[in-house]
């Protein structure tokens, strides 16, 4: 398998009155074809900033300071306006966090589909667009008659599914899902993710799945990257992160959700609050909240420990101590 998306040394700055704040710092990762990758971390760690810069949707004061983003060999950062317009949605599409509010409430669903086809030069024929839209909306499990409805007539889960159908309208190679189900109930969330999972196999696209809910990600993704304060601190297959995480932050995230079946003991979560990105300390960024911090963590930036494609950045990794859950 070849890499579909390659992100190298990406850095994104937010320009503020007090100088630039680096929200994403030197991040590299790649997604292979038909693979689903998860990006996990707390609010404000830069997950969404990465998602926006992959589509170049970020606006000032956000700026890509450094790095390259290549999708199928084309560099997204070097694209011009028109090229970018054609590229978005056609190659990469995105399901936003509040996707239910992305739909225009006063335009019927059918017309919103038609506009995608019209703007990307697929068809200008209303009937043909309707036929395509019917097919799409049925695969996400909404009856085709409902294309005549306005978005407010749908429930939250249905709106989310309609947005997923729209995101798949032009058969993109990569679907970015930025916390797609946080506002939904567990049962609906499950139904939607299951549908996406089946569609991924059927239509063969890759997924970048962004969430702070690691338990959900473990089931859904092949590979997981854990992000903290603008840096990817650990990257490994989902099962490795679950069974044997190396970075204390990954371990903390993994231990943040109570088990459904196992014994319930006292669980800690991760103490403290996410790092203020305008005041980055010397050494490791996780030092204040880490239960394994040593003197060196406050002085030196942890080196990257590479194991094949997997890596972690830590002075004092978990080792093999963490074989069992809870």
């Amino acid at each position, binding site marked *: 398998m070849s890499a579909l998306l390659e992100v190298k040394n990406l850095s994104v700055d937010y320009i503020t009155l007090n100088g630039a704040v680096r929200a994403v710092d030197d991040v590299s990762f790649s997604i292979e074809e038909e693979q689903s990758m998860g990006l996990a971390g707390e609010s404000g760690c830069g997950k969404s900033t990465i998602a926006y810069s992959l589509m170049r949707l970020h606006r000032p004061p956000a700026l890509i300071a450094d790095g390259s983003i290549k999708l199928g060999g084309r560099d997204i950062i070097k694209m011009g306006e028109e090229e970018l317009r054609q590229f978005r949605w056609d190659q990469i599409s995105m399901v936003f966090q509040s996707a239910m509010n992305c739909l225009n409430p006063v335009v019927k669903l059918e017309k919103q589909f038609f506009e995608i086809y019209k703007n990307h030069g697929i068809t200008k024929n209303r009937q043909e667009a309707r036929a395509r839209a019917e097919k799409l909306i049925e695969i996400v499990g909404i009856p085709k008659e409902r294309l005549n409805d306005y978005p407010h007539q749908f429930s939250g889960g249905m709106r989310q599914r309609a947005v997923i159908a729209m995101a798949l309208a032009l058969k993109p190679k990569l679907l970015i899902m930025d916390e797609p189900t946080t506002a939904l109930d567990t049962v609906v969330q499950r*139904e939607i993710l299951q549908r996406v999972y089946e569609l991924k196999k059927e239509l063969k696209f890759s997924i970048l799945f962004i969430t702070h809910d690691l338990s959900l990600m473990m089931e859904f993704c092949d590979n997981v990257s854990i992000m903290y304060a603008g840096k990817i601190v650990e990257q490994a297959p989902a099962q490795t992160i679950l069974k044997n995480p190396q970075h204390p932050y990954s371990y903390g995230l993994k231990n943040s959700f109570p088990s459904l079946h196992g014994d319930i003991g006292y669980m800690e979560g991760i103490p403290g609050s996410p790092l203020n990105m305008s005041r980055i300390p010397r050494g490791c960024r996780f030092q204040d909240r880490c239960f394994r911090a040593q003197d060196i963590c406050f002085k030196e930036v942890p080196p990257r420990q590479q194991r094949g494609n997997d890596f972690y950045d830590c002075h004092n990794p978990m080792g093999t101590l963490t074989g069992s859950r809870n």
Partner: protein
Amino acid sequence: MDRQIVFSIKNVTMDFQISGKTFFSKKRTLRALNNVSFDLYKGESLAVVGESGCGKSTLCRIAMRFYTPSRGEMTYNGENVHKFKGNPLRNYRQKVQMIFQDPFSSLNPLHSIYYHLKRPLQLYHGYKGIELKAKMNEALEMVGLVPPEEQGIKNPHQLSGGQKQRAFLARILAIGADVIFADEPTSMLDVSIRLGVLNLMNKLKREMGKSFLYITHDIATARYFSDRIIVLYSGHMVEWGDVDKVVKHPVHPYTKLLISAAPDPERETLAKLEVRDDVEKEVTMWTPESRGCPFRNRCPVAESRCADDFPEAVEVKPDQFVRCIHAKEWKTENSAASEKPERNQPVG
């Protein structure tokens, strides 16, 4: 064990008139809660789980006296809540408090945290000067906002989501509440922060004897934090009882569905949900005329007799009650096999 009931709800039914307020339109009524009863003991946490629109928040609002239930009654320490007026009402408002889902909008952005704590302490307890300051700091320390002098002067926007929820809990402590209705207190917070807030609530429960009604849709945290659980579907209590029994050995098909839908990293692949695909997934609107089991059109084991009546509660195990036509069969099957050691298989 003698446990003191602090709050109890008996056969509460809540109807909302959704149209028919004018002469011309046809009268339509939505039944949001149907015969809900429970007792909340001192120092206990009772979880209410269910999906959006099942009546969880209505339950909270009835308890806060935002709505008057159509039928049924509520008692606080044995006294009827809806008869409260004047001083008893003031006392009730002090003792029964609510935490909201959204910490970002439940604190006034223009006032410091100290101000949020100062008002209730002045109004309900009449503290002044140094004593007031000491009480405010005590509340902040209790919820882990340390050092209190530093955190108290901050405005809400300077705090993270978890800290805001803690500040809100500090306010509830300052008022001196006994019963706390928590309406999805952690669902807007990061997963890593959630446990901290839950542990704090646990501490208040254990050390100070506060009672919690924990409303959530996350069954895993319900199991972690609560002693008992109620599964609500379309305003009906379908299964309730001891949290471990319900989560480990659910009997009602809806409880099973909820549990199989919860994310569980121990499953290696996405497990298939047991739902019928051929029917409308929406929850049907429940009206006073509706009969039968509310879950029947989504239920994988529904039969024709499910449409006739909503079955009575069956105690399938000590402290586990189910309202399902299959509950009795389930009970006889399992009581026959009860000599065997309990199976420890994962459910769902």
